């Protein structure tokens, strides 16, 4: 894995864009692995009863992806200190979901990043932020 160092990063730097897509099988496995029986994630007819166009991607699964987006970027020597995300719109399976990020602050060895998760129409699904500790070259 690539390892960024504190000396390499500045406010305004962008993190590489990542695009992913959740299959219905993935939603099912995530429900199973987390013991989550909520029908909106596997029963499309029922999801429509709750006002969704189809089954929707679990909010915490998107939270896990937002976390993964940051931990992959920070590399094995980075440490994730804080992260948070807000649900703005539902994510659907079998559609491209794009993650982008930008460094918003560097304070000592702590680096703050802002992350955006968007669907193919550019609609923001979950805005997020995180703080990581990066290693120094010295």
């Amino acid at each position: 894995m690539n390892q960024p160092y504190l000396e390499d990063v500045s406010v305004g730097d962008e993190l590489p864009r990542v695009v992913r897509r959740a299959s219905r099988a993935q939603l099912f496995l995530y429900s199973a692995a987390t013991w989550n029986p909520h029908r909106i994630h596997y029963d499309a007819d029922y999801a429509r009863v709750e006002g969704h166009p189809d089954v929707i991607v679990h909010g915490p699964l998107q939270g896990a992806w937002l976390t993964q987006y940051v931990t992959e970027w920070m590399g094995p020597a980075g440490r994730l200190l804080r992260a948070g995300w807000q649900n703005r719109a539902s994510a659907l399976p079998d559609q491209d979901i794009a993650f982008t990020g930008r460094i918003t602050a560097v304070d000592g060895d702590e680096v703050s990043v802002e992350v955006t998760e968007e669907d193919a129409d550019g609609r923001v699904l979950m805005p997020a932020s995180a703080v990581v500790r990066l290693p120094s070259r010295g």
Partner: protein
Amino acid sequence: MSDLVPPEAQAMVGEVTSGPVTAEITAKESQRYAQAVDDLNPLYFDEAAAQAAGYRTIICPPTFLDHVVVSGRPLSDLRTDGLFRQPGSPRLAMKRVMFGGQEWDWEAPVHVGDTVTATQRLAGVERKEGSRGPFALVTWETTFVNQDGEVVARCRLQGISR
């Protein structure tokens, strides 16, 4: 519609709503979670990679903590929407529950083989006005403590009920 946030719900703020629940972090469950997320970070799978990065052994994905402490429940506890009846949830006049958001603080790494104890408290119940009508914003706070009594993480979870 009846009162979205009845006084009984407000009165529950501060109460323990779940736990303490203790769970061991096993490689099987942690890796199954990582695979379901599609996060194949070597720190979760490869002992040598984890040790090279300064960990005692493989660690679990940061967000796995929230799930490892979920207890199994009988099917008779399922509601129509598929969710389990939550004995500690405030009784709101709600039909739909949606994920609102989460805020995490991670204070120490969690390794496979560690034991984590989670205690969840109801942190707030607020009535809000949204573009699609009124809703209740419910906040739970969970503290995760390891086998040495060290706080490893705190999580604030928000749910939206309509």
